[in-house]
């Protein structure tokens, strides 16, 4: 039987998958960026390799089509932004889980699952706040 708890739990799994995908996409973009930088260095030694990589990079939107010379992009803000974005999804997830936990608190009384969820909730928000604070503090 499909209950409200089951639906919310399913949604939390979906949000988890979204958060993981965002982190993977961010890491992928970073790898492409690093590859591009390596290409710039390598192309000085092997000019022929530049052409194929350039076409590939344009295809995956790492290089914009209209600019020939782009300003250097820092890697840390991209990674931190991706991480914060994924953490925001995890925040939404934690809030959803807490709704379930509090409902069960009134029905069944306190159980170890409640403490686990509270620890998860506090942990997620602590990481989120620290990351956000660090980005703002060091102006990344």
């Amino acid at each position, binding site marked *: 039987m499909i209950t*409200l708890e089951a639906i*919310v739990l399913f949604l939390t799994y979906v949000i988890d998958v979204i958060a993981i995908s965002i982190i993977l996409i961010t890491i992928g973009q970073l790898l492409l960026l690093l590859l591009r930088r390596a290409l710039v260095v390598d192309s000085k030694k092997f000019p022929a390799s530049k052409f194929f990589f350039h076409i590939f990079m344009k295809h995956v939107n790492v290089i914009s089509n209209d600019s020939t010379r782009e300003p250097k992009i820092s890697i840390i803000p*991209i990674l931190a932004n991706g991480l914060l974005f994924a953490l925001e999804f995890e925040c*939404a997830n934690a*809030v959803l889980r807490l709704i379930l936990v*509090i409902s069960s608190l009134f029905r069944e009384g306190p159980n170890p699952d*409640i403490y686990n969820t*509270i620890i998860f909730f506090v942990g997620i*928000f602590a990481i989120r706040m620290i990351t956000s604070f660090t980005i703002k503090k060091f102006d990344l």
Partner: protein
Amino acid sequence: MILDLNGLIPIEAIRSYYIDLITFGIDILAASVIIISVIMALISFLKILKNPIKDQTMDKESIRLRLARGILLALDFEIGSDIIKTMQIPGIKELLILGVIVTIRIVLSWSLSKEIDRHNKMT
């Protein structure tokens, strides 16, 4: 003459029923706000993937804060729901847990609103 209303009408049961109903409604509302915010953030994220990486960083920040606003709204609903739930607390342990959760939520709400204010001042 004192009239014993509790014996005639199950006031406690009626009150408990309505509190359950109202808090359940508020919980559903909060969950819906979160789910809608998540879906909108996901759609926006997929849209900005076409842009160059430098533009994506700025756009991601805007989407993230929009999602944070959604979470903030849901948290406000949840704090309201928790306050109503305190009317039918079964024991001191549950009250303590609820107190901790409400405190965490209030701290989170405060932090999120500060972050949104800071972002608004910057833009």
